[in-house]
């Protein structure tokens, strides 16, 4: 079974787990094959790692609606998700998270979320037209950890 390297750990994955991003991510067009990896210690976050021979690239992402219940991004009519969703399919929406060395400053990118079709296993990073969504929205964090 092929593996990904995330923070020095070898994580096995299967070919069927690969989500294809035909145009890559914004500014990172080579990231076209990604795999989501769940890990209990970082829940509710999910690793989102690139399948790449050259380097080990992984993002921390989160299911956007579960963290920001009022977040309901609308796909622009001419978005790059056109043609990637199955008929009447509701896409999975993930926000890329930026973990700051100062944890309190960690944020999520709500302006350009990842839309993914679980049926076609294809996705795109969509830049939303609504500029009230922040590229760096502070995460809802408890004052103390359990």
């Amino acid at each position, binding site marked *: 079974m092929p593996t990904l390297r*995330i*923070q*020095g750990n070898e994580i096995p994955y299967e070919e069927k787990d690969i989500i294809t991003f*035909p*145009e890559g*991510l*914004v*500014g*990172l067009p080579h990231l076209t094959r990604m795999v989501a990896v769940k890990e209990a*210690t*970082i*829940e*509710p*976050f999910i690793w989102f*790692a690139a399948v790449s021979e050259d380097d*080990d*690239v*992984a*993002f*921390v992402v*989160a299911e956007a609606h579960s*963290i920001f219940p009022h977040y309901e991004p609308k796909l622009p009519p*001419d978005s*790059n998700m*056109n*043609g990637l969703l199955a008929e009447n399919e509701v896409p999975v929406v993930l926000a*890329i*998270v*930026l*973990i*700051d*060395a*100062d*944890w309190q400053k*960690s944020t999520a*990118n709500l*302006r*350009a979320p990842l839309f993914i079709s679980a049926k076609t296993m294809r996705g795109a*990073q969509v*830049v939303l037209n609504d*500029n009230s969504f922040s*590229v*760096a929205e502070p*995460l*809802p*964090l*408890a004052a*103390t*950890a*359990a």
Partner: protein
Amino acid sequence: MLVLTRRVGEKLVIGNEIVVEVLSISGDGVRLGIAAPRETSVHRFEVFDEIQAANRASSAFAGGKSGSSLAEVAARMREKKAEECQ
């Protein structure tokens, strides 16, 4: 950088498929119409640049430097959720 002069109503082609038309000019603003294949995204540069920078900053994390910070943030996210459910 290639520099060309176009008038209102004139177009140019990038590659074989992307057509840019000058629709109107008003003061120092230029209105452009862009026809591109659906798989080609078109963004205002400032927005693109901001998101590109955010993506790169987020992917740099994967190298693994701030691992303890990640666990800390995850724990506080779970705690926050638990507080809200009470």
